[in-house]
């Protein structure tokens, strides 16, 4: 059995007595995985992370990190964890270096070199002596990440780490996460409300809605569960004619809007056949797009699922 770095057992928490914010949550984060914790806004992602780190006191259930109970091994566990929760905690009147120095003093045994190294990793070396209140949102996020990386954590917990970053920054963070994971075997727990982000980075995924876990497994498994049908969007110059041809091929189709239809197929091999048939009938094709079914699945899981 694979070793679990994060494990919760029937975790429960509520901010108020009227509503349960986290309900019987059983997280399973395997060692050396990149675990995507996915859910719409307000699903309980940040609350869960706060429970994992002991910022909130759980009402019932257990939190185990590195196989140990959090309450009894707080300092030992936190030594191996780097975390960035929501907006990074930074002292605006201090510089980037000073912020890192304070965090490294608390961690102890962190060399000056490591501070410059982390600044380099998050590409903030040029602003190291700038006051943090002059930083942009993206720069603050990077500095928050640098603080999380200071202690070479075995477990990196990132709460919506790409918030406020530009597209280049998002790609850089994605690469960094993969690098840390492949080179150092760092286990990464990353929360997001964007499926595309999780899909590209993660090996495992947990989907949460209203404080309940809806799905938890490897990303491949998630992909497999919905790969039976592919949905195509085809833009042509003639909807009705196209639909007649699609029907002849024993496929179902619906009109989405003017000159745009949606066709359901079983396998990708159908795509060239369909194009050949349409072209044979003098239909102009302007674009064909395979719809991201994972996105659909996520939406159906989190929206249609009445809990």
């Amino acid at each position: 059995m694979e070793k679990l770095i994060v494990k919760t057992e029937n975790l429960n928490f509520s901010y108020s007595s009227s509503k349960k914010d986290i309900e019987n949550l059983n997280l399973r984060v395997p060692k050396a995985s990149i675990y995507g914790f996915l859910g719409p806004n307000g699903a309980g992602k940040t609350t869960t992370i706060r429970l994992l780190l002991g910022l909130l006191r759980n009402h019932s259930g257990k939190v185990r990190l590195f196989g140990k109970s959090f309450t009894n091994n707080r300092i030992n566990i936190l030594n191996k964890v780097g975390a960035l929760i929501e907006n990074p905690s930074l002292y605006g009147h201090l510089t980037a270096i000073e912020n890192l120095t304070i965090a490294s003093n608390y961690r102890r045994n962190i060399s000056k070199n490591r501070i410059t190294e982390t600044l380099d990793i998050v590409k903030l070396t040029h602003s190291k002596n700038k006051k943090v209140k002059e930083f942009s949102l993206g720069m603050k996020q990077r500095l928050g990440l640098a603080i999380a990386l200071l202690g070479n954590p075995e477990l990196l917990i990132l709460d919506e780490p790409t918030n406020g970053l530009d597209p280049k920054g998002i790609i850089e963070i994605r690469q960094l996460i993969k690098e840390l994971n492949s080179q150092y075997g760092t286990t990464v727990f990353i929360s997001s409300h964007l499926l595309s982000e999780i899909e590209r980075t993660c090996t495992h995924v947990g989907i949460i809605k209203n404080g309940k876990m809806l799905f938890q497994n490897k990303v491949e498994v998630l992909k497999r569960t919905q790969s039976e049908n592919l949905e195509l969007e085809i833009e042509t110059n003639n909807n009705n004619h196209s639909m007649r041809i699609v029907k002849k091929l024993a496929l179902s189709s619906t009109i989405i809007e003017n000159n745009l239809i949606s066709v359901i197929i079983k396998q990708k091999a159908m795509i060239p056949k369909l194009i050949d048939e349409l072209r044979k009938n003098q239909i102009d094709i302007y674009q064909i797009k395979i719809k991201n079914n994972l996105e659909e699945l996520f939406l159906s899981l989190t929206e249609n699922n009445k809990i």
Partner: protein
Amino acid sequence: MNAINIYWTGTKNEFLKLKRTFAFWLTIISAFFIPAIYLIYYLLKYKSLLPSNNINPWDKFLNDQIMAVSSLLIPLFIVLITSLIAQLEHKSMGIKLLFTLPTPKWSIYYGKLTVVLSMIIFTYLMFFVMMLLTGSIAGMIHKELKLLTYFPNLGEPLKLLFRSFVSILGILGIQFWLSFKEKNFIIPLGVGMVLVITGLIIFQAQESIYFPYAYSRLSLFSLSQNIENLLWFPKVLIYSVGYFLFFSIFGFINISRMDIK
């Protein structure tokens, strides 16, 4: 890593955080404020302030100022400085980070409390030095004030300042806990100010010995009587230390169990 090392690191970090903050300047301004006013007062009204023969003019100069700050300004300073220093954390959402770092929570709470205490002691010392400095300046400008003829009796004002300092420990413990707990700094500030003023109103009642916000004023009692009999440690100071210990311990237990949202 032993406890002393952990405590020292926590305290050192709290000092680092003060860099370029207003909290540091507040201590300087507070220490300078009343001596500056007294300097102006002595320079403008020196004719009515000339000492009688064989009377050391410093006694009045120093004791009046300590009387002036003790009832209201020092308690308000405590309310302000605790809110200001705790606000450094709240503004940066620092507690969230600090409580996820591998350091015991007590090192953060007591490290910060140590810094606040040091700043208060620093303000007291600065205040004392400023009084001597402004007195000398006044004496230099108006020789007839005889402030340069006499050497100040330092024992009594030091004793008074010591009593004043111990008397505010009680409200320091309360205000520090409240400021650490409440993100909104209007709450500790508002509560503190109202209670300080309440203290001023009720200090003459016998029961005010149980009300820590009146202690700064109570610590001055017996001043009007024979100053030689001034105790270093009157009963009110024992109560103040008691409140301080209680709220420092209770406050920490409360904070360490608090949900950080």
